[in-house]
């Protein structure tokens, strides 16, 4: 089926998320939609899927104009979507999830589960999935849940399939397998829209590439285009993918983690017997696909995890079992991976957020009373120093852009006397200008002699910042390698494999390590 979008425009208040976007997807092609976070890709697809109504423009399928009042209409017209955040009901079985919204019933209105199971088995067989229709979705691994999403779309005879950032949660291997499946679907005549911001994947599988930026189509490209070309189209100028930094001058071991295991609330061993150390003045990056224990590891250091085994010592002081506030007082700075969820109180002002983790002691609090005059002066200084752009320090933080919000978090954490700095996904979802700023501050912190841990799922960020890289897979550290390790090796390690050539390096070996 041929899909055509003509002049799609979608506004949210004063923001134009999609500005006259044109897109043609031919039958049996994989069309990549490439753009930065916030470029308007997801909005466009939600318009296509009937979740949003376009303010202007039209959607055509096989030259016929369509009007989708809701996802039901889009599905009926043959559009299927594999959502970035899976739209599956965790307490339902695979069969129930697949039949939902499209239920067959037997006499007396009873659900025909047998038919749904058969449908799941039939489609699974077509693609060689091995999927139990009666398994609870909650019990399935992420990669398999994605297949349930695909089956759900195919069970409705989707002719156009939209994959919204499908690889964000997958290992490189699972990603490869997904590429194979997408190829199979294309060969069967399905038109595929592949939304992503990862250049490599686009070049690997796409037949054609459309790049959007700031809600507008800025160009088309062939899969033969170079990374640099695609990247410059995506962000609107040539991008510096590397960060200028001097060679690290590692000092003494500051943070020593030994045999650390973390058990989550569900009783799962999410961090498994991890050991490493970080020296003063070096950046240790913790790389890995989302959900392999990095989050829990960083939370364990801060004291946010309740069941922690093993030892974490900072300058000889044990951090295990200490409350979060004591860990912070011990000189640990922390940038959480989801700043809106964990880092900031959106309704609080910039000033209030700047004292959020120092609400106990002087100079912000004296005898239980807030020192508002000091706070305001402090906030004025810090917003200037960290280039936080706003209407003033009394602006609620929720009104700032992602980049400015992250600067507030950074200003708060870096304005304490740090003995360790932990930054998780420090540049997720922020603009390029802010990314450069954040990276610069992280390197400055390192150069000031503070041990730094950067947790990131973006290989670009890891290789740009790290002096050493620890790769995590299923809760364990697969290996610790020098910062200049090649992507291919890192990719394999992220899938749990260790190439023979790799030996784990310590900080003082780094200059001699050759790869």
């Amino acid at each position, binding site marked *: 089926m041929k899909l055509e979008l003509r002049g799609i425009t979608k506004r949210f208040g004063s923001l134009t998320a999609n500005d006259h976007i044109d897109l043609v997807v031919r039958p049996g092609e994989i069309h990549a939609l490439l753009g930065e976070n916030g470029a308007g890709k997801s909005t466009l697809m939600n318009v296509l899927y009937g979740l949003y109504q376009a303010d202007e423009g039209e959607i055509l399928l096989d030259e016929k104009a369509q009007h989708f009042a809701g996802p039901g209409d889009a599905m009926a017209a043959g559009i299927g979507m594999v959502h970035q955040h899976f739209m599956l009901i965790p307490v339902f079985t695979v069969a129930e999830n697949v039949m939902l919204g499209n239920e067959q019933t037997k006499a007396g209105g009873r659900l025909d589960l047998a038919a749904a199971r058969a449908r799941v088995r039939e489609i699974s067989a077509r693609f060689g999935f091995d999927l139990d229709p009666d398994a609870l979705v909650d019990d399935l691994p992420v990669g398999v849940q994605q297949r349930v999403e695909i089956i759900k779309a195919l069970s409705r005879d989707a002719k156009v399939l939209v994959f919204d950032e499908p690889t964000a949660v997958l290992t490189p291997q699972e990603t490869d397998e997904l590429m194979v499946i997408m190829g199979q679907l294309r060969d069967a005549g399905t038109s595929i829209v592949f939304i992503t911001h990862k250049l490599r994947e686009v070049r690997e599988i796409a037949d054609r590439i459309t*790049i959007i930026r700031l809600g507008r189509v800025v160009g088309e490209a062939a899969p033969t285009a170079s990374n640099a070309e695609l990247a410059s189209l995506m962000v*609107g100028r040539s991008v510096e993918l590397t960060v200028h930094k001097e060679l690290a001058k590692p000092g003494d071991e500051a943070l020593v983690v030994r045999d650390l295991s973390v058990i989550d609330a569900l009783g799962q061993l999410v961090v498994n017997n991890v050991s490493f150390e970080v020296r003063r003045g070096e950046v240790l990056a913790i790389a890995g696909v989302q959900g392999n224990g990095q989050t829990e590891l960083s939370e364990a250091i801060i004291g946010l995890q309740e069941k922690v085994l093993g030892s974490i010592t900072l300058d000889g002081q044990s951090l295990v079992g200490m409350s979060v506030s004591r860990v912070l007082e011990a000189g640990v700075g922390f940038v959480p991976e989801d700043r809106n969820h*964990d880092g900031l109180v*959106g309704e609080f002002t910039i000033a209030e957020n700047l004292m*959020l983790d120092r609400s106990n002691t002087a100079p912000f*609090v004296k005898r239980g*009373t807030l020192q508002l005059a000091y706070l305001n002066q402090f906030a004025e200084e810090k917003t200037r120093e960290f280039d936080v752009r706003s209407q003033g320090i009394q602006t609620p933080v929720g009104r700032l852009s992602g980049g400015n919000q992250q600067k507030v978090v950074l200003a708060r954490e870096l304005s304490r006397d740090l003995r360790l700095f932990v930054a998780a996904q420090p540049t997720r979802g922020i*603009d390029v*200008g802010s990314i450069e700023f954040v990276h610069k501050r992280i390197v400055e912190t390192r150069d000031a002699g503070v041990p730094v841990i950067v947790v990131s799922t973006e290989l670009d960020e890891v290789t740009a910042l790290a002096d050493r890289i620890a790769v995590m897979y299923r809760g364990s550290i697969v290996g610790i390698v020098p910062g200049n390790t090649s992507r291919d090796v890192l990719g394999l390690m992220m899938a749990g494999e260790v190439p023979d050539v790799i030996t784990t390096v310590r900080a003082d070996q780094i200059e001699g390590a050759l790869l």
Partner: protein
Amino acid sequence: MSDTAVAATPQSPSGGSSTPAPAGTPVAPAPRSNQILRDILGGSVVISILAVVLALVAGGILIALTDEDVQTASGYFFSRPGDTLQAIWIAVSGAYSALFQGSVYNFGAVDFAKGIKPLTDTLTFATPLIAAGLGVGLAFRAGMFNIGGQGQMLIAAAAAGWVGYSFPLPYGIHLVLAVLAGIAGGALWGGIVGLLKARTGAHEVIVTIMLNYVAVYLVSYMLRTPGLLQAPGSNNPKTPAMLPTAVYPDLLGSSYNLHAGLLVSVAATVFVWWLLSRSSLGFKFRAVGVNPNAARVAGIDVKRSYVTVMLISGGLVGLAAVAQVLGTVTSGFSSGIDAGIGFDAITVALLGRSRPWGIFVAGILFGAFKAGGFSMQAGEGIPVDIVLVVQSLIVLFIAAPPLVRAVFRLPTPGVTGKKKPVRLAKAVAAK
């Protein structure tokens, strides 16, 4: 292929998709005069006032519909519609004038001292409402929904009352001890809720509702059991009268009901204002209330905050019980001593938007409704329950500003430029 695109001027692209404003340019302000108008019209104060008006109108309709004269006159509406309208006017204006004269100033009184008595009654009724409203409102600010006012009041009343009638102590000391006992009783009953929430994650709404009933039965049992709370030599489920040493002194002499509890409520308002806007503890409460995750990551002990705020909240509600037991009804109390104040407090806190001085004003308004309601019942024969109807309608209207705006055709504030494209993933967290 990319040359033209690359040539674009370097600029900061938009930030995360949840933030409409491009980095660097602050949120574009609307034309100034326009904005101020919108803020005033759409702001909460106007909505609050309109909600009260709307609820009074609805109450008036109810009064008119059930009035016998109106019903009689409407029987011949088409022959003489004026009669019906006149009957409606008499019924409604009579009711609301009785409400006013019963709560503010009685124009029929012989002198000013008598005429102003309704206002003092209003303040007497407002005293416990303010205290309990502050308790509920404070818990709101920390993200806790305290529907347990009834239970907390009963336990507090039992504690304060027991101290108040049991031990003969010197003036001053006795009163202070009794008040503290009441605060402790309320804090205990509230603290259980905080503790259960902190330790087990039990939802405070369910726990407070259930604890209300537990308190009702517990206090009922104590009231009918000799040796516990029951007055010696009596068969009624009622305590002995309070000793004079434990009673709040009258503020305006014995011809008025107003007692020193009002001063305590004013002090409590100042205290809660200081707590919320000037203290470190209140800062933590507010952070926990708005974003417990961020609070936890910032080293604030969220669980301890739940316990602390419920202790303070219960203590404030306890003050309401103290005002009842040691101020308004000093002749001994029975299990109805809470007089629905625990639930009224929720409406007071909502009307006051959980801000201390807002609660203070809302408490006085609802105190006026109570005082006026009783004189309306006595004078006009309109059941006092109409006050409940009006109160609950006020809260419903306040909770839904779009409804009030729609009724009065007001502009919606902030439609220009503040609406965020809610990222789909945020509305309901995906797996």
